[in-house]
């Protein structure tokens, strides 16, 4: 498959501080890729390096197979949508969108056609004569996208584009972005700290932490099969529950782990080498925890009732919080003591360094 963007051993340091350590990723042409991670993980820096707004300290950046590591931002065939839109406040919506075409000395007729087309796609036609100050947040965001579209770049870069919008608008714009990607089919790279945006938009997610790519793959691959404890905990909402424990026995494709708190034995499918007595962490998603009489003792602290789904916030003996997802729950469970259990195939095991034991 042709590559839209590929990074080869890319590094970035500010003085003595390394913010990006040796990142190599491949994003196929037409892909919707999402860089996700907590703040300070280097995802925005990586995006800005692809845009050419940050210099690369080492490695190679290729766009459509061409080495652009030392190219100017304008010569890379990329367009970027900024978190706070970065619209020119003194220009109308039309002039904002026409800005790059005018600099490129495009013909008046061509400019008018391209801007009109972008305005049509983004439903901005009636706002073309207005200045950004007269627009709502969502409209401004669309102008910023429109400014990117008219350039017909081979790669669109989005830097947390929805984080300044309110919750409802964010959901709506998310759908519009997904639709836009289907419509124009260009490669898109999207940076967010919101794993819900990552899950809903991405063809491929790249999870970053401390300047390293922790794992790359489709949203469901990352959800079902995380490589490490960080990815398991970061992807999914509510987050995965973790239980510290110690291997107490096993055999026949199974291993038994006794939890530190409550001393309850969970059986997980055995993968890889583990020895008896090894410290491990169990990861179980809220929807995989079952209530069972014989399970790990916990007390129901709070219930978030959403109608179809409810989230039980239960506390273990040491006061640590665990979330259990239930469907169709109608009884009041607050204050009751329950037992937690899970199927062996639904339990992920991580070693002490947080690496997944498969």
């Amino acid at each position: 498959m042709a590559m839209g963007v590929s990074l080869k051993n890319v590094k970035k340091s500010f003085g003595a501080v390394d913010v990006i350590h040796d990142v190599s990723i491949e994003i196929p042409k037409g892909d919707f890729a999402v860089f996700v991670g907590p703040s300070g993980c280097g995802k925005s820096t990586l995006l800005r390096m692809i845009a050419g707004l940050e210099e690369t300290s080492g490695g190679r950046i290729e766009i459509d197979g061409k080495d652009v590591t030392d190219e100017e931002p304008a010569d890379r065939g990329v367009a970027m949508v900024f978190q706070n839109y970065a619209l020119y406040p003194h220009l109308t919506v039309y002039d904002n969108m026409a800005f790059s075409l005018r600099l490129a000395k495009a013909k008046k007729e061509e400019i008018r056609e391209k801007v009109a087309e972008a305005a049509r796609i983004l439903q901005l036609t009636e706002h073309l004569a207005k200045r950004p100050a007269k627009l709502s947040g969502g409209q401004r965001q669309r102008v910023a996208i429109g400014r990117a579209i008219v350039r017909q770049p081979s790669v669109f870069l989005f830097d947390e584009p929805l984080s300044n919008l309110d919750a409802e608008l964010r959901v709506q714009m998310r759908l519009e972005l997904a639709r836009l990607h289907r419509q124009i089919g260009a490669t898109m790279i999207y940076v967010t700290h919101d794993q819900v945006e990552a899950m809903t938009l991405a063809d491929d997610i790249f999870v970053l932490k401390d300047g390293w790519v922790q794992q790359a793959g489709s949203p469901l691959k990352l959800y079902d099969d995380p490589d490490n404890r960080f990815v398991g905990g970061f992807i999914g909402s509510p987050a995965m529950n973790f239980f510290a424990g110690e291997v107490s026995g096993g055999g026949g494709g199974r291993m038994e782990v006794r939890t530190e708190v409550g001393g309850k034995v969970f059986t997980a499918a055995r993968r890889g080498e583990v020895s008896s007595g090894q410290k491990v962490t169990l990861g179980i998603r809220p929807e995989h925890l079952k209530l069972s009489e014989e399970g790990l003792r916990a007390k129901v602290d709070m219930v978030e009732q959403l109608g179809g789904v409810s989230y039980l916030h239960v506390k273990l003996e040491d006061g640590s919080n665990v979330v259990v997802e239930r469907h169709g729950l109608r009884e009041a469970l607050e204050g009751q003591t329950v037992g937690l259990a899970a199927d062996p195939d639904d339990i992920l095991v991580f070693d002490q360094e947080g690496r997944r034991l498969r």
Partner: protein
Amino acid sequence: MARPNKTLRRNLIALSLVAPFTLTFLLVFAWPTFKVIQLSLTDAPLIGDGTWVGLQNYRELLDDRIFWVALKNNGYFLVLTIVPTTVLALLIALAVNRLRGWMQPFILAIFFLPYILPVSVVTLVWQWMLDFQFGVLQPMIEAIFGKRTAVFRDPTWVMPVIALVTIWWTNGFNVLLFLAGLRNIPTELYEAAALDGATPRQRFWRVTWPLLWPVTALVLTLQLILQLKLFDQVYLLSQGGPFNTSQVLLLLVYNEAFQQNNGGYASAIAMVLFVIILVVSVMQFQLLRIGRHR
């Protein structure tokens, strides 16, 4: 009846808040202005009353050659200072804005330092530097123009040099205004412009310049008002000479009032300057505002 009471109380509070300013304004601005207008219609000396002469003082002004010379010199001084100081301040601000770390406040302080000096110190410094015999700048003048020049006693040199001293003295404040304006332009706009393919020159003319225009208009207007009120530097450096080539309106007011004891006539000149400043600055500000909306 609680409501009218409440309204009354609120009005009283409002009045008490506005009163100090209003009283001060009436006492130190409106009343003196009124007195000056009144004085300008009499033949009063500096102290004491005079007799009513109507518009006689103003009629005399029209025939006063020195008045027209002073007016022309004020105009010449505006040309020498306003645009040059604005352009210079913008260039310095652009350069300072590019500096990082401790260099930025350090360099800014150097440019701002003259502004905090009193005018008498400023003029002394320049008088020393430009002294005909011992001035450190005289060898430079000699190298460029072939001979030493007593600049404050030379009809050609006097106004440009006073303009130079004035710009040196007051420019730091304009740099500060421009710097504040530049810092208000978000970095992302420049990044967006870079991605849009704008060259550094295009980034300046299409992003910086239009977004900085309100500050530029402010600087131009403040400068216009300030430079029309030129007095101290001329009084200290050249006393209006030689041959009235640095005579300006405020100096004329001073001479007429405090040297010739012509209070009424001096008031008439002051009124003319007052009206000129009012009209020109309002006109300029309006023009600049139109410029912004175009």
